[in-house]
């Protein structure tokens, strides 16, 4: 057996968490450095994974399988395919940059880093496991630390409410996912939790597929987040500390789309066909309504939160077209949006650390005193509004092409979001960063060289994957092809 790279990606952060737990809370810098090293190694491993995944062979690679509870068919089954490799990379990037962004946190450093990395470990697990039982476990591991991270280190007086709402809605969703998984296990009657086995030989009647798909759609839809279960997201973003928002919007939301693409669609293709129109209608609400609502926000993080609602709608819209282009676009959008939001939140954080407010109406002229923070927000904004050259443009282009082809009218309606997004982003840049500086903020220092490192990494990722989208798309397509074959449509 080769070097177990997937288990390493899972174990190294776990060891990091354990090491942090064994460090004295006063040794803040030690804790930070341990976190940085641990996540740095993980990041390198994920890059290695991306490079060494054999694109010509495709399929599931780096498989590891250890029998765990044979009587129920539960195995520690790890493996990655074209869909999960980019997402593993995304998560590694988000946690690595997230650790750097959180450097200035002084309160309960030990617990913060332990929880943050623990969360990321859960997300890694979700992206790498091929066993539904482990999928469920990792899914919970990924969701749970969020409550503490927001409630303890968050900002704003609403943070406990936000954390509570977020956790409850996500658990509400995961209850459906759990139910769905168990029902799926039972209904397949194969005595296995392995997605691969189930994909190969499980047979479900059309009605059952429809019912199961609905369960998964509600479950995963609440984490995507699909309208009308989206309200946890802007509030959760707004109250969370920067790194948590980065992981939350950058990666956690992608669990929903990933779940649909990994479990619901390949196993229940008929279900998607039944629910595609509903999904499309909800995604329209996400895309257009989310974008318009973002205009009215005064808190920058709320604005970005609603923009996430709008952009994650693209994922749903792409899936609902049931075409290869649409699925490619949806998967690419998950990846691209992850990087963009990570950049949004880290650049807002770079300003917020100094100003301690994010209210658009209170700020102004920030670019005069913090040109760096302003520059990175502007880059994120330009990428977010779909400027060619950045990764999201490619994703949106594919979703729109598929959308206009499948649902011409709604496809065109969804393009309206392009204008609305430009409006709120540019308006925000104008009001926050441009203009005369409010004397209140005069003399605040800009982001330091160290602060800028994670931002530069994210910008580089946006540019690289925007100019060479094939790096990711070739991977994604290996898997979306299979999905389309399952769906039996073009």
């Amino acid at each position: 057996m080769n070097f177990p790279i997937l288990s390493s990606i899972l174990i190294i952060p776990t060891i990091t968490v354990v090491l942090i737990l064994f460090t004295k809370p006063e040794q803040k810098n030690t804790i930070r450095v341990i976190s940085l090293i641990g996540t740095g190694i993980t990041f390198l491993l994920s890059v290695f994974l991306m490079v060494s995944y054999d694109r010509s062979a495709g399929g599931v690679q780096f498989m590891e399988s250890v029998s765990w509870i044979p009587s129920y068919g539960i195995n520690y089954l790890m493996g990655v395919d074209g869909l999960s490799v980019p997402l593993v990379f995304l998560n590694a990037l988000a946690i690595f940059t997230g650790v750097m962004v959180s450097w200035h946190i002084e309160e309960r450093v030990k617990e913060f880093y332990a929880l943050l990395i623990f969360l990321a470990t859960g997300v890694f697990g979700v992206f790498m496991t091929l066993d539904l039982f482990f999928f469920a476990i990792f899914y919970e591991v990924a969701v749970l630390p969020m409550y503490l991270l927001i409630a303890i280190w968050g900002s704003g007086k609403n943070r406990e409410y936000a954390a509570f709402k977020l956790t409850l809605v996500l658990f509400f969703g995961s209850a459906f996912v759990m139910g769905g998984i168990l029902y799926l296990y039972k209904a397949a009657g194969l005595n296995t939790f392995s997605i691969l086995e189930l994909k190969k030989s499980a047979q479900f009647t059309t009605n059952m597929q429809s019912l199961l798909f609905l369960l998964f759609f509600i479950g995963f839809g609440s984490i995507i987040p699909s309208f009308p279960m989206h309200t946890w997201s802007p509030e959760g973003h707004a109250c969370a500390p920067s790194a948590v928002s980065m992981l939350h919007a950058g990666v956690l939301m992608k669990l929903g789309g990933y779940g649909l693409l990994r479990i619901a669609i390949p196993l229940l293709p008929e279900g998607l066909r039944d629910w595609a129109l509903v999904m499309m209608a909800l995604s329209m609400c996400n895309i257009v309504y989310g974008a318009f609502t973002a205009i009215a926000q005064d808190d920058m993080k709320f604005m970005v939160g609603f923009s996430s609602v709008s952009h994650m709608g693209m994922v749903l819209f792409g899936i609902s077209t049931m075409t290869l282009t649409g699925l490619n676009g949806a998967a690419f959008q998950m990846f691209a949006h992850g990087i963009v939001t990570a950049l949004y939140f880290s650049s807002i954080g770079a300003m917020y650390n100094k100003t301690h407010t994010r209210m658009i109406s209170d700020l102004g002229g920030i670019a005069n005193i913090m040109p760096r923070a302003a520059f990175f927000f502007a880059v994120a904004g330009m990428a977010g509004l779909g400027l060619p050259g950045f990764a999201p443009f490619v994703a949106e282009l594919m979703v729109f092409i598929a959308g206009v082809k499948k649902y011409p009218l709604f496809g065109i309606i969804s393009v309206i979001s392009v204008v609305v997004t430009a409006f709120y982003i540019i308006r925000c840049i104008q009001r926050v960063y441009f203009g005369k500086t409010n004397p209140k903020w005069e003399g605040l220092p800009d982001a330091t060289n160290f602060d800028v490192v994670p931002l530069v990494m994210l910008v580089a990722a946006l540019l690289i994957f925007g100019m060479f989208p094939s790096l990711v798309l070739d991977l994604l397509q290996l898997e979306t092809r299979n999905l389309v074959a399952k769906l039996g449509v073009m």
Partner: protein
Amino acid sequence: MSQNILLTVLAVFAPFVSIFIIGILTRNHKMLSAFVAILAISLSTVITFYLYFSNMQGVKAETYYFTWLVTDYFSLKFGVLFDALSLGMMIVVCLVSLLVHIYSLGYMHGEKGLARFYAWLSLFSWAMLLFVISPTLLQAFFGWELVGAASFLLIGFWFHKPEAAAAAKKAFVMTRFGDFGFFVGLLILLVSFGNIDFGVLNQLGKSPAVNHSLLTACALLIFMGIMGKSAQFPLHAWLPDAMEGPTPVSALIHAATMVAAGIYLIARAFGFFSSSPFAMEFIAVVGIITSFVAATIALVQDDVKKVMAYSTISQLGLMVSVLGAGGYKAGVFHLFSHAFFKALLFLCAGSLIHHFNTNDMWEMAEKGGVRKMKITLTTLIIGSLALAGIFPMAGFFSKDAIIVAFEQNHKEAFAYLTMLISFMTAYYTFRMIFVLLSPEPAHHHENCHEEHGHSEHHGHDSPYNMTIPLIILAVFSVFFGFLDTPMLGGYFDKFLLNKHEVEHLHWGVMVKSTIVAVAGIAFAYIQFAGKTGRREGFVEKVGFIKNLLVNKYYIDDFYFLLVRGFVIPFATVLNWIDRKIINDTGVNGTGNIVIYSGRFVSRLMNGMLQRYLGTSFAILIFILFLWQII
């Protein structure tokens, strides 16, 4: 890959490399960054001229593709289209861009963010060249959006000025609104025909299998993008505001190149647009309305840059209109000649502004000393003559070509309107000249030195790095027009259209247009020359017309109302719905239901035996009831 293609790619990517060199290495060194950017654009210019001279006697169109994104059902490719049109436009873009790069050394002297300025200029040059060489509509869109972003960054270069910030936003959002149409049209074409290149696109209308109403719809949608970017009525309102940007930027982006991108796109996809008579008619009408509206507004402007901005809109309108009427060559020819003399005019205005620290022509006249800026004044007058269309300037020939094209395409009404617009153009241009040349008030001379310190040496012209670009552009403005005359064997036709018969001169049109232009200048002379102080022209004397024009037909007010009265309230209402109905009622309500049902159940189990028994009994009854139903 042929040599032509290879060189074109090099020319396009030189500024691209420059962005990263400045961004990564030299961003803390102002002059080094300027040097890098100038070097890059010089390289592009040299390559472009080399390409021109090696293909002087006619360009064989070549296309080359790099694959970019391949999926099973479509592949997106990037490429280079090398033909006479793209080569001509590359020359214009590179040359004007290079001159603006050099000019900015003087104009932006002492500017803190010079490195940033040059990085954005490089970004713009790259994006514009990428647009110009696109063989597909998709790549054109790619470049199109990027030039928009560069324009936003450069208009907002002095972002600490609230007006500049607002203007940058307005420019971006308004052109983006037009781009919505472009994007939808592009998507429909992509979905219906795939990622086709312009060659195929231009032939689509000839195939009977293609749905022509679909083509018309796409043409109109794409034209919406052109209306935004090339500032056509009613999406023109951003361009005058964009004058808040540094003047060299206005010259490059908002006069010579970016705003002409729409014209270039119509010319590029001329066959496609021509396949829809309705779209062509629409384009022609929008163009002429724009031209007329902008020319009238320019009559009353006091800010020299605003005069030029409205005149740019007006000239762009003419180009759009003549292309819509079917005059391909006339549109392209005017695009090129306008690029030279309008860039010249803007750079002259920049030289004046640099000198006087004001944009207002009356204040300039009052401060005095315009006559002593010999090079600036001479080139300004050359540019103005070209804009007014006086022989032998470039504008004379290209404007005549437009009128001839209208007549040949049986659009006499358009030809007469163009004459009227020419009259107004000559009038407002020379109104500015005569105001600037007002006799200098004697008492002002001594004060000026003290007031403005050493930054204003009255009686000196701008530095050489500013005046040399002026002279070069003036040379082009004078001689470029002759390319289209029989004297040079109709060279422009031969180059652009590969057409060998020489078109004779249209004496009738020449005489008529000269009379009109001279009349405009004379009219301005009568009202403005030789006097001092603020004075009103014939338009300002009619109250309601003055109000209408000074308020720019209330179009800005309309947009203000649209945003403040509709978009933002709409967003606020949606936000209220989101907070109050979906969150507070829906999400919290669900939570409350759980809480209240929990309280209800807990009340059933309060520890008293009677309650337990009662509950058990009720449940029993309920189960029996269910049993009955099943």
